[in-house]
């Protein structure tokens, strides 16, 4: 068999899109996003350790519209990665492998992460907790 005619594993273009592979890709994407978020978190702690002037400047940068958009993105990444991570841990423990269940839990993860992101920003912007 020549190299060209060998069967190849399904690549993105020929893969039938479904809940499971979409969420698998999103899990990685949000994970990469959160690695950058970890960078921001350490930067925030560094600014806090540096003192009043630095921290106030950093807070000002975090408060600007483009950063707010970034922060909304990070909170979604966080809640998605958290919910889908719990789904992965359930799989690791042997639960929810059934195809229909895996699809339903996937949709539940998506809905939950959107709702949690919404709740977070509602509370953050209105101060409903305080």
């Amino acid at each position: 068999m020549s190299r060209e005619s060998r069967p190849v594993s399904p690549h993105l273009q020929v893969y039938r899109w479904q809940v499971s592979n979409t969420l698998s890709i999103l899990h990685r994407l949000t994970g990469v996003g959160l690695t950058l978020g970890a960078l921001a978190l350490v930067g925030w702690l560094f600014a806090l350790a540096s003192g009043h002037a630095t921290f106030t400047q950093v807070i000002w940068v975090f408060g600007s519209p483009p950063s707010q958009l970034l922060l909304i993105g990070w909170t979604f990444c966080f809640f998605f990665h958290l919910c889908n991570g719990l789904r992965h841990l359930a799989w690791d423990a042997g639960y929810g492998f059934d195809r229909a269940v895996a699809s339903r839990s996937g949709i539940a993860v998506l809905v939950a992460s959107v709702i949690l992101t919404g709740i977070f920003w509602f509370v953050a912007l209105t101060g409903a907790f305080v």
Partner: protein
Amino acid sequence: MSLRSPLRRVLGLGASGTGTEHWLAQRLSAVALVPLTLWFVISLLTLPTLDFYIVNAWAAAPLHSILLALLVVALVYHSHLGAQMVAEDYVQMAGLRVAVLILLRLLHVALGVAGILAVFLIATRASL
């Protein structure tokens, strides 16, 4: 005929001879991050404002600085394990892959050290 030695078979190691530790460490740090990140997010939401004096007083409290240090450790560790997997899967050129893996390791060590030291400095400075 299996080419695996009896010892390898007993130890359950595949062709690469490793991998279980990585998988297990990723799960362990994930489990640790569930309560730590939720605590952090809820704490941020419940602080009256995010101004310097308020955040500083909150972060300097002994329990909070311990939890912050644990958060940094678990987060940086988990981030490194995940980023490593992504690089191993998608960076095709062997030389570049090694370079990226080294860079990721150094970056995460630096992040961890910086984060822990920052928390330590916040916790130990005279109250402001």
